[in-house]
């Protein structure tokens, strides 16, 4: 991309150029590189609107499967914004962006959260308002939603969405993740269990991955053991019903999943089989 094309977009009359700039960045990694190279304090005001536009464009193009990783160009803008904008400015914008993903785009929500807050540079205090906003929005928007809305909020090809939403990628340091325990999100259990009957291929893999015990998750080989506390808090009396659904879930039907996910599902089925046979 020519420097002048990018410079005119960057230095032109600000806001009306945002969609054009965002589209150029999405379209070409080299354009994103040029943007990053020329970005300075005069472009600071454009950064967050560009990112918002890119998020919107990703939602429009990829739907439930939207993820920042689908466009490398976005990271050029993200790097500049992270380095040049004060967190107090970012925080309200980030909350808005995350809430825009509820319902329908939880994979993108996790992705945006991950790049902005899931690093060691951020403290629990910084994460707290954002996590609280996300939890509250989910509660509000999913509580009265029908099963279809829940089904359409999870990417059927990526079964780690629910796990990342609840525990985040910092699950091994729970003290740093506000609202990151199973109990904080327990209200979601019955809703998902009900919706899983409508769209088992989408939600069963999400629930299976989320219900894996942390000890087995840490292993380098695929292993599975139900997290009893999770089952209790999320499903209560219906935990055995969930285990029965896991046993009945046919991994061969979930062809959209990668081999790793299928491995976990098969391991979960084996654990469910064992638990049910023991109980009988």
């Amino acid at each position, binding site marked *: 991309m*020519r*420097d*002048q094309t990018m*410079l*005119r977009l960057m*230095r032109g009359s600000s806001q009306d150029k945002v969609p054009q700039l965002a589209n150029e960045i999405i379209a070409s990694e080299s354009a994103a*590189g*040029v943007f990053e*190279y*020329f970005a300075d304090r005069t472009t600071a005001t454009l950064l967050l609107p560009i990112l918002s536009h890119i998020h919107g464009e990703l939602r429009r193009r990829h739907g439930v499967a939207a993820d920042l990783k689908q466009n490398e160009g976005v990271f050029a803008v993200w790097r500049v914004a992270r380095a040049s904008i004060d967190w107090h400015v970012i925080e309200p914008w980030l909350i808005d962006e995350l809430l825009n993903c509820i319902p329908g785009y939880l994979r993108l929500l996790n992705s945006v959260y991950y790049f902005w807050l899931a690093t060691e540079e951020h403290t629990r205090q910084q994460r707290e308002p954002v996590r609280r906003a996300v939890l509250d929005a989910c509660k509000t928007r999913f509580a009265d939603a029908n099963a279809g809305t829940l089904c359409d909020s999870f990417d059927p090809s990526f079964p780690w969405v629910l796990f990342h939403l609840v525990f985040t990628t910092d699950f091994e340091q729970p003290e740093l993740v506000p609202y990151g325990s199973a109990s904080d999100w327990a209200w979601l259990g019955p809703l998902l269990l009900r919706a899983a009957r409508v769209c088992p291929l989408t939600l069963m893999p999400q629930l299976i991955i989320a219900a894996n015990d942390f000890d087995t998750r840490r292993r380098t080989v695929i292993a599975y053991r139900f997290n009893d506390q999770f089952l209790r808090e999320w499903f209560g009396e219906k935990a055995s019903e969930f285990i029965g659904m896991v046993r009945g879930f046919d991994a061969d039907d979930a062809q959209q999943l990668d081999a790793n996910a299928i491995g976990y599902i098969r391991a979960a089925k084996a654990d469910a089989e064992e638990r049910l046979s023991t109980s009988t």
Partner: protein
Amino acid sequence: MRILLFAFIGSIFALYVSPVTTHWSAARLEDATQHNLISLCVLSGLLCLACLSLIHGFARFRLQQARWLTYPPLPVAVVIAFLLAAIWPSLAGWIAAIPHIEPSIAIMIAIGYGLYWVLSASAVAAVHALRRHVESVDAPDTPTESRATLEALTDEQLSAWFAREQPISSPREDLFGFWEFAETVLQKLWREGNTIALQGGFGAGKTSFIRLLEHRAAQRRAPLYFARVSCWGFEEAIAAQKSVLSTLVKSTNERVECLSIRQLPQEYVSVASKRLEWLSLFSSSDETPVEQLQRLSPILTAIGRRVVVVVEDVDRAGQKFDISTVFALLAQFREVRNLAFILTISPHQVADFARLCEFTEFLPVPAASTVAILCQRIRDRLIKSFPDDILVDKVQDLVNAERIESIAALMMPGVKDWPTAVIQLLRVPRFLKRALRRFSEAWNTLHGEVSIDALLMTCALREAAPSAFSFLQAELDDVLTAASQTSHQSNNEHINKLREELKESWQNVVNKKEFDARPVEVVIQHLFPGTSFLSKSHVIPTALKQGPSGSRAKTYALRLFTERVEVTE
């Protein structure tokens, strides 16, 4: 005497040979025209005119050459020959007994030819005069020609000036003070016997100066005329000697009929090289080379002028070329009255100028301020020609940078800024013109895609120090790698080794002494910040955003080197 000798020989031919050839030609023409008298007259008349025109056109007989008594032109010999042919039969009976041309016919031919010659030469002179008149009417009215000033030149005139590679010939194109210097040299030439060695490096404007000198001499109506000869490409000095003399004779022949010295180049070379050529059978072989050359003196005295032979490009001759042979010829020129010479030569040429020439003059070097103003004006014009471009890097004030150089030197001794270095590199007219031309052309493609100052630096390097530019081009990847390492990484063994290797390669380039290393190193360090390891030059570079530094260094380096926007890293 020679004319009379030719007239005598011609008269014998006219007397006895012409009737035979006339009869033979008449028989052929009668056959061709089938004995039709009118056709015969027309055809023979046309043939005569065509033959005479051809001969005169080839021999370039001109009216202005005519010095009737001192150096009569060759056609006079023809006229005398036919007049003599008319007289001979009346002088001796045995001559009259042999079939010969009729005296009345011989007189008619002599008169007819004489008239033809005078009329045709007059017509040619009139046409030339008319052409000069038309040219002088068309030319702008410049009663007192003076040299150009930068302030008076428009941007278009400036562009036209550097767009031309050819040497200048008018003071209106002189920006470097050659016109005033020409007056100094002219005064020295005016005095008899002066010989001058004019020193100037490659592209310093030697040829331009000589042209301006000629112009000045013509303007001052100096009794001088110039014979320019170039030694470029001569493999053997003998050929160069011959070329010098041929040019001398040819330019003298423009002003006077030089029948007596037309064989001078061959004869001189023959005598000088002790070879007996067939031409020497007709010449006075006992003459020394100096005596041969002195045959020029009476002719030059006759026309009242002094010839200044300008010998150029001696330093560009072939490897076998023995320059001392040409110098020997020039030394002999000093023995010839009314003959002077200017030897234009590079300062690197090893020669004993003091023995050969009475004066050694050094061509003026363009003033640094002039170069700075030129570069700045061109740069400003280029920027203005693309008004929509957003230039990221601040352009440096070249004129002020040059002005404050002396103050800066006091504050930070040894530290040079890039404008001063670029100006120093471009204080050679040819380099300056080429760099500005390239700068303008490249900006048409690269406008807004590179720093304009980085482009100016690159153009200056490319034109004024091509071997330094080639080094950067060849070692670009390594230079960028070595330059991009920050201090904490500089201990890295690999990087240190790379820097050492690059430094060694650079020293090899510098050791060839093809350019002034100091300003080149300053420019390189400004263009590629972080390359201080290459030399000891102390520079405080400012990285240009659109220059070859930072994360897009290679993109900008390739744009600057290839002069294209789309580059593949």
